[in-house]
């Protein structure tokens, strides 16, 4: 099958690939770049386990072709950890029990990170609404919401 030369930046590294135009971004991230932290939980864009940030916007990487990411900057769960140190959102999920089986976790963390970058003043109901595209079957969401609240405190603590 024909391929297209595609260039993008993932977690701060430039990548150049020959990609079949039909391949989804999530497939390329996982299978060609080995970034398996981005998960596939459905094939209908319902679950959000594949959430990544593309040019500053959270997207579901199962709903974007890899060739559409040409020239763009991508952040995955692996890119949140800097020099082995967890991002505040990752730390919050770990310390406040924001996960059980862990499968939805990378998508949840990426989405939470993006939400907190958008607006740290959203209340609980606003957060819940914005998290409704990310499914978790284990936790019942309560602890995830609490983690986002805690991550907000950690981020504020850092600024002050």
């Amino acid at each position, binding site marked *: 099958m024909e391929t297209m030369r595609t260039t993008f930046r993932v977690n701060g590294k430039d990548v150049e690939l020959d990609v*079949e135009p*039909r*391949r989804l971004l999530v*497939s390329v991230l*996982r*299978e060609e770049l080995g*970034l*398996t*932290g*981005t*998960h*596939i*939980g*459905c*094939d*209908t864009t*319902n*679950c959000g*386990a594949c959430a990544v940030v593309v040019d500053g916007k959270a997207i579901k990487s199962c709903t974007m072709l890899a060739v559409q990411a040409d020239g763009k900057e991508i952040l*995955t*769960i*692996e890119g949140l*950890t800097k020099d082995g140190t*967890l991002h505040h959102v*990752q*730390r919050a*999920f*770990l310390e406040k*029990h*924001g*996960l*059980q*089986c*862990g*499968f*939805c*976790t*990378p998508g949840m*963390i990426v989405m939470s990170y993006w939400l907190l970058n958008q607006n740290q003043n959203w209340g609980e*109901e606003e*957060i*819940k*609404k914005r*998290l*409704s595209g*990310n*499914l*978790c*079957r*284990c*936790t*019942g*969401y*309560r*602890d*995830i*919401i609490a983690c986002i609240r805690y991550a907000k405190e950690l981020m504020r603590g850092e600024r002050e």
Partner: protein
Amino acid sequence: MMGESESFVRGAGKYVDDITLPHMLHMAVARSPYARAKVLSVSGGMNRDDLKAPIGGFGEGGRRDVNPAILHPVFAQDTVNYVGQPVAAVFANDRYAAEDKLDEIDVEYDKLKPILTIEDALSGEGGPLHAGTTSNIIKQSWMGADFDDPASPIMLEDQFMIGRIVSNPLEPRGIIADYDGSTITVYISTQAVFSIKDGLCSTLGLDSSKVRVIQADTGGAFGVKSALYPEYVMAVCAALKYRKPVKWIESRSEHLAASQPGRGVRGTMKLFADTDGKVLAVRGEVTTDAGAFGGSSGTSSPFFVAMQLTGPYGIENARVLATSVMTNKPPQGPYRGAGRPEAAFFMERMMDLLADTLGKEVDEVRLINTTTHRFTSPLGLEIDASRPFFERAVVELQYREKSIRDAAGLGFFVLVPAVMPGESARIRVHNGTVDVWLGGNQHGQEHFTFVKRLLSEELAIPENLITLNNGDTAALKDGVGSWGSRSALVGGAAVIAAARELKSQVESRLGGYTAEGLLEDSFDAEVFDGHTRQLNSFGANLATISIDNYGMVKVKECAACYDVGRALSPNVVEGQIIGGSIQGIGQVLYESVVHDSEGRLLTKNLSDAGVPIAENTPEFFTTIVERPSSFVHRAKGLGEAPTIGVPIAVVRAIEQISGKRIRHTPVRPEELIEDSDA
């Protein structure tokens, strides 16, 4: 390495789809588009010409004592019996290419009219699904001794239906099979490596010393990942045939169409009582829609439901007809609770009806039926005195206040964990580190927390030296599995038994036990800690709700009061309760499996299937009662409690607000609108 949650927040978990082996093939599966049809011809791929073997009942609730004619074939043979049933498999170097190759499969079908309901299956119309059988009943028998109907003033009858639910763990099913010319190594997302190994060996006639099953990190299961499935057998066959590793990862569409859904149980109840509300006798019928084949937990489901039917009450007379029937839908399997929620729903709905009939409070009618001593029901359910717990739970849940203020619903139940036959554990000490394996495999319940706590207590060693490894049949002689609220209970007891064996090894080598002595040398202890008696516990739930003009129900408050014995990891206990509660809410308000009149699945994505979202989360209140069990670590079961107790509390609350009697789940908004005649 599972469970040390830090790898998961980094995105460094190793789920089965994250594993890549050299020269690996990807498998895609061609499936039946019809609920019932004759298969006139199949060409292309691996198909019925390559393998005739059927799959027996392996995993939670599986039964092998059924007519071989009704077992699930790996590849469809002369007929297909549900939409999604595997017909053929293709293999390619990459997932996209494997999907492309499905075009090479050519199947000729002769469509038949499907049997889709319990009623149709029992009617006999449409004939038996499988050649060599005369009816669509898998198993049927009476439970409990017969009795003369009591001459009681109150006799109430009703019928209930709990609809099917797909487990829908966020990680779908998946397997890699690898053959090196001598041994088959399987990496799999599972609750039970030994069920998978036993099932593969039995189905394919493999020597058990040549098969090793290793659990990858497992992203949830809720019952759906203990069974042996056709795709697993296909992957192993292909690995043997092509001498290359073969990976199959289920798509969500496949999960919804062709994994084993839970529930699908009908209950008919007849209750005899006196005017005080004391229940004198129960007659019942429990019928499970077991789907298209025998051998799965659908075969045993109605018997397990029937056994629990008297719940936490001291009812002296009970007799139940239990029946499993076949329909043209995927085989039924366990889903969190697996028979327990159904039994509680049937009895608690009758308790509410009894209270309403007598004009009494629902807690009053329940109280009068609790026991003040240990009681074995006519159906074989063993319970402790239930009155002390119930009296406390009504107070803890503030039922009376909330009943008046918010028309709260109440539910009371007994949790029957799958204690028997016990579980295995192994502890190996080497180079100052402690490695642990359990027969039952964690898939989100964080077993590592209780393993670390119990071992640090028993062996006086720091928790950070202890690692709980993923399931591996090469690390243990045998094992059971993780399901039925059993892991902290029997897995925890097995860990202590293994620790004590380890201590006695240290004592006999060094003349006495010290943690330093243990850690400075190498030791290895494996036990199977057997159990032969039920160890049941009580729980109660309360719920308050509101209903808007469109019939949409919102659960406002969801409160739990459970006796968990000693809470080994309080935040994990809390997490299990909250997570299970929203699944209970899902059963009542959102989740369903809907087929059209031709048996084609309509609930084809996670939204249509109704998996709850963050906005569905109510306010939670939990009360943990720690009444110690008779087990060595004093723990009790927990995981399924919320899926038993929450639905019965929520439906009662809906009934109170809407004024409409609720007889089934899910409850649809259109049923609750004022002038609806639904």
